[in-house]
């Protein structure tokens, strides 16, 4: 099997004393990441194009007077690179210091605390506050949809959200508008998201390094370090995206893409990222149920009842308890087994049809068809593959 082509000639470079070989076209950032050397960064994201805006990822290259951003610099033969030095620390501290001058330092109440990239670097560079005159220039707060909140005061204009929207999702819903202190991430004319081309996939929220973009579902539901995390596979379409759910006290607070190597990496669609709340709907079936006419015939209820002629589809808000009574598992399963046995014995195996489910697991579908073939004795087993 082949792979995307590389030139046959590899380049030799040295990063922090490690001699490595890289393919031509590899950036210093990518080369460092490949050997697990973390270069500080804010606007860089491995899945997005290079912005080079934050300058936090500067490194020193032997023979060059000035540090260069590692995200945009391609490796060259013989390069000797240093990712840590006193000079670099000074430069990076100053960048973080400047960003903090235009960012509320309310980490004690901020829900991104513990996961915020700016907070991480402030900690690493020992910055409790900014040494510049603090002034938060963006104040727009937009909670115009039930998917995510845009709180511009936390925005550091890294443009990750804009790039994700353009380069990955292709929705092109947002842009950086304005200049200088008035510049901000916006839909056309700062209108509500629903009037834009936004598809509410939340990819922007996922790549945001600060609390500028946050899921509505987690507001007031707890801090990052209080969340339990469980990874599973999305239950909607057949792509099979890996999703990590954050939970507090057994309830989901938000969902996000789980990891780079999976089918989907950081990215999900709107259904996967936001469409999980059905699971706790009060409409969920919680106990086995028997239809009232059947229950009456069995003496489980005194009230006679008849299935209405009208199609259930024509009832605007049907209520299941109008037509069914709750029962226990033993009663329900014995009833089904009794009736199935009767039908098989009087009409034959092929009088029974089983519809399995493309929403159930392999194990369940396997057992279902085994039940139909061995238990009932028919190949009448199908599922919604065609529907």
């Amino acid at each position, binding site marked *: *099997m*082949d792979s995307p082509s590389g030139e046959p000639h590899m380049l030799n470079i040295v990063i922090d004393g490690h001699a490595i070989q890289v393919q031509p076209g590899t950036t210093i950032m990518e080369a460092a990441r490949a050997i697990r050397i973390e270069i500080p960064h804010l606007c860089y994201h491995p899945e997005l194009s290079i912005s080079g805006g934050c300058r936090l990822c500067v490194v020193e290259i032997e023979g060059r007077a000035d540090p260069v951003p590692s995200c945009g610099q391609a490796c060259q033969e013989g390069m000797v690179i240093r990712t840590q030095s006193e000079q670099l620390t000074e430069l990076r501290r100053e960048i973080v210091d400047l960003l903090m001058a235009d960012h509320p330092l309310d980490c004690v109440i901020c829900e991104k605390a513990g996961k915020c990239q700016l907070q991480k670097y402030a900690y690493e560079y020992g910055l409790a506050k900014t040494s510049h005159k603090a002034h938060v220039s963006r104040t727009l707060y937009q909670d115009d949809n039930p*998917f995510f909140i845009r709180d511009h005061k936390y925005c550091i204009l890294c443009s990750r959200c804009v790039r994700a929207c353009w380069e*990955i*999702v292709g929705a092109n819903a947002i842009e950086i508008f304005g200049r200088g202190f008035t510049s901000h991430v916006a839909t056309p004319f700062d209108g509500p998201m629903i009037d834009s081309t936004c598809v*509410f996939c939340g990819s922007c929220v996922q790549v945001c390094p600060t609390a500028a973009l946050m899921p509505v579902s987690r507001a007031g539901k707890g801090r990052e370090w209080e969340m339990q995390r469980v990874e*599973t596979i999305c239950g*909607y*379409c*057949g792509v099979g995206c890996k999703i990590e759910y954050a939970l507090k006290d*057994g*309830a989901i607070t938000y969902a996000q893409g789980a990891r780079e190597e*999976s*089918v989907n990496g950081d*990215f999900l669609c*709107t*259904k*996967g990222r936001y*469409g999980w709340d*059905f*699971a*706790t*709907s009060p409409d*969920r*079936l*919680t106990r086995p149920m*028997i*239809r009232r006419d059947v229950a009456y015939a069995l003496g489980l209820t005194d009230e006679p009842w008849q299935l209405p002629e009208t199609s259930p*589809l024509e009832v605007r808000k*049907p209520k299941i308890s109008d037509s069914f009574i709750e029962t226990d598992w033993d009663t*329900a*399963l014995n009833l089904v*087994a009794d*009736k*199935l*046995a009767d*039908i098989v*014995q009087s*009409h034959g*195996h*092929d009088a*029974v*049809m*089983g*519809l*399995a489910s*493309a*929403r159930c*697991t392999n*194990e*369940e*579908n396997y*057992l279902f*068809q085994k*039940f139909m073939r*061995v238990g009932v004795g028919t190949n009448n087993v*199908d599922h*919604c*593959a*065609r529907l």
Partner: protein
Amino acid sequence: MTNSIREIRDADCILITGSNTAESHPVIGYEVVRAARRGAHVIIIDPRRIPMVDHATLFLQVKPGTDIYVFLAIMHAIIREGWADEAFIAERTEGFDDFKAAVEQYTPEYASLMSGVPVEQIEAAARIYALGERDAGDSSYDDARGRSTILYAMGITQRSNGTDMVMTLANLAMLCGHIGKRSTGVNPLRGQSNVQGACDVGCLVNVFPGYQSVTDAGAREALAQAWAADGLPGNVGLTIVEAMHAASEGKVRAVYVMGENPMMSDPNTTHVERALRGLDLLVVQDIFPSDTAYLAHVILPAAAALEKDGTITNTERRVQVLQPVLAAPGTAIPDWQIISQLAARLDAKMARERDADYWHYDSASAIFTELARVTPIYGGMNYNRLRGEGLQWPCRTVDHPGTPILHVDKFSRGRGKFHPIAAHDPAEQPDEDYPLVLTTGRVLYHYHTGTMTRRSEPLAWREPRGYIEINAEDAERVSLEDGHAVVVKSRRGTVRTRAKISDRVPPGTVFLAFHWREAAANILTQDFALDPIAKIPEYKVCAVRVENPRA
């Protein structure tokens, strides 16, 4: 899929047909967007101006059901212009001459007449796909010929000639050698989380787990032995739509439904409802009281996917492990526990002599162990190996790394067979009484019969109710305005919904998603003309008329 999802981003040309990728498989849509941003050609062949068209370099807007002419003409042009991959055809395939003769009559001019697509577009699509041309930028590969991949979905298969359509796409890929390599292939995008797995493990009428034919006596015997069963049925069973017909004839008396909603998902709802009402026993096992559940005699509450462990298999044949995220509500339990308990009780009622624990399993993983033993393509898998990124079948032995790309050195049958295909028109054509073509599908914010997504607050906020997409020209004919109530009628039934005037659909075509129980699209669709082999209903084409109730 013959290939893997993450290869799409490196393709030079992506041909999308019968797939509303950005709405039905958004994350695969992201792969297409990435490729397009790097300069890949994106060719879309579809009756609707779907959102992915924004990223397309070529859009062939066919009249519904006429795409077969376009594909045959594309292959005609490829052969005529010498763009075919002669070496691949000679070394890897058979039946080329018969196939070549069969496409002879389908000239681009003929196809243009039938489909409404200009000849130049058909020829451009033929050249770009065949040669794997890029719109801009450099290829990720060094090949002389660029790499082209085909993505398709139910727009191709939910047709009375669905099997022909799929074989046509396979013919096209083989004709150009775009198969068996990274970023190529014939790639069906499957619509539900485990539709691939449900097929793999034998929830089909004609095959046992691992696609072993039920009519193969050897397979029956081996499996009967593995299952310690006296014997296994050797006749092909009834598919869903056939079973509904059999039920209305009284031949099928009991239906056991696990996690499906035929009242919304099957064609010709009125007929489905009549069939279900006539049953002696309807058991519905589900997470919500679906419209099918309302007709059941017994409802069994199941745990949702978020509350389960087990494995599911995605569209690229990757088997991945689920972890329970939430606790199941009330007394709801995972489906496998319900089946296992029901099976044991049925054995007792039928006085079958089997080990007491025959249907007992300790865990989902214990079922998987048995499943892997009798399903050769899963043979090398176990839960330990599946953690992390999972494995793509075929994976027959524990040291096999899985198969990201099928048909690399040879096809499963040896040489790839060209199937000569003739064009077929949809079974129900528009006429004076029903002048419009209805095509059905999904919208971005909802999923299948809507039982889950319509109960999701953010999704329901964004897309609260159903609508029919109709072109301004057709709307004007009955004095409909955007947002107006509209009545849609077919020979099967009537649906009331709202009009959304849109240039996504061309004049003569309307689109209604099947998520809306208050405007259930399948009341309109037909169930009389199934694909003769796959038995799939023609959801994508039926004849309707729209009426303005105010007129």
